[in-house]
């Protein structure tokens, strides 16, 4: 039995109007995100047997997002951020009309495709959760997406200045809570956010690279 089963039981027997979002019960749709004993988790993947039978288990909605009812939150902030991300812009096809990518180029970004958009990382990130910097900060889920586009071997768009200015990657202080809660085990901080921070450093903070660009007259563009 998982926490979501217990909630369904409460719904059936004690509180018919209890609101809770769920869909797949297999940890793949990312709907049942909530905070269980204060920890952001998927309710369908959290076993009751992992808790002491005597223990009271507390469930709460995600703190970062406005509550619609009970455990259901309004996560539309995320979709608004996503709309602002410049989409995939592939380079021209090869002469035979195909696109070619080698396995080693795809491996790195494959990890990011595992995201189920549960938004637990957005919930736990203190920049959004406590400091409420939704005005300036996109949140870890969107750095995953930005990294998967920026590191894509076929993509030609350049999002580095937006990552700095609009999506506010500098607000992330790499404290890794997003990585700790991700149910897909994506290394959000190590493999997406830090590599993007380093790309920003190349462009904006590294004086030697700046000088080399001035001398050679070429900006590192794809």
């Amino acid at each position, binding site marked *: 039995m998982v926490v979501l089963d217990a909630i369904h039981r*409460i719904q059936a027997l004690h509180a018919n109007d209890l609101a809770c979002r769920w869909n797949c019960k297999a940890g793949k749709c990312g709907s049942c995100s909530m905070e269980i*004993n204060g920890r952001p988790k998927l309710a369908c993947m959290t076993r009751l047997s992992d808790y002491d039978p005597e223990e*009271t288990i507390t469930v*709460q909605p995600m703190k970062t997002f406005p509550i619609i009812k009970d455990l259901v939150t309004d996560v539309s902030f995320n979709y608004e951020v996503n709309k602002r991300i410049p989409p995939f812009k592939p380079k021209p096809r090869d002469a035979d009309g195909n696109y070619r990518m080698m396995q080693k180029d795809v491996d790195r970004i494959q990890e990011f495709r595992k995201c189920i958009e549960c938004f637990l990382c957005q919930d736990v990130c203190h920049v959004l959760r406590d*400091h409420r910097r939704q005005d300036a900060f996109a949140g870890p889920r969107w750095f995953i997406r930005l990294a998967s586009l920026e590191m894509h071997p076929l993509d030609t768009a350049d999002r580095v200045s937006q990552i700095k200015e609009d999506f506010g990657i500098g607000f992330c202080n790499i*404290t890794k*809570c997003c990585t700790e809660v991700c149910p897909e085990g994506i290394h959000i901080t190590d493999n997406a956010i830090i590599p993007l921070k380093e790309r920003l450093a190349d462009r904006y903070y590294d004086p030697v690279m700046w000088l080399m660009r001035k001398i050679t007259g070429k900006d590192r563009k794809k």
Partner: protein
Amino acid sequence: MAVSTNPADHAPAAGTRPGGHKDGFRATSRKDHWATEPLAVLIGLSLFIIYATWAAFQGNHYYVSPYLSPFYSPLLWVNPDAAGAAPVAHAWFGSWPQWWPAFIPISPSILILPFPGAFRFTCYYYRKAYYRSFAGMPPGCAVGPIPQHPYKGETKFLLFQNLHRYAMYIALIFVVVLWTDAVRAFFKDGRFGIGVGTVVLIINAALLSGYTFGCHSLRHLVGGRLDCFSCSSSCEARHSLWSKITGFNERHMQYAWMSLFWVAFTDFYVRMVSLGYIPDFNTWGR
């Protein structure tokens, strides 16, 4: 509205949000021992800083042939009058300079320790560790951080963290220096041999290499900044280097702690032997 079945929990408490969340430093609904880890980090790092600072200002007993404490390497100048000092021939630039201002303690360590210090301070792993443990931003996951109005993260005062790569360049030089020390630890007065101290110095160089080679900035510069790993033979070569660095990078935290502990232990070991408090078992005879 909270969803607990206990009616007492349904009454909204003052200062809480509708979901029952509390605000403020250390506020959380977590019931596990979340404070243990930041506390352990706080204690571990504090102990290291205290010991390293103390050892750096001693200026003596950092050498006992053929072992040199890593806190004193590379040796730029040597003050041969200090007890347990290295021979002047070991120093890159010879004897301690006459013009050295009297108010600054004479210790070869304080000339070089800021460099590995800067490397660790700007390291992505240590940033996580001390932002959580020392700065409370946040102290734990889903635990209230120290309030800041407005929160700036690494966008303003902490922008210098973006220069981590320069500290890494110097750290790479230190790796070479420390391996040189480890190799020298096989030769006492020109005679080949091995002692416990040799092993201690080798482990030190190995752990510091493991830590340095896992650096995120290094990982980026050797290959992470490329979008296409297969587009030329040099990209292929950089990809294989990047993969190796990634292997170290995945254990960066473990190497960070092991090398931190061991570098302090190495200094301690050399110091104890140099002071004559413990014997060094070796093949040279005493």
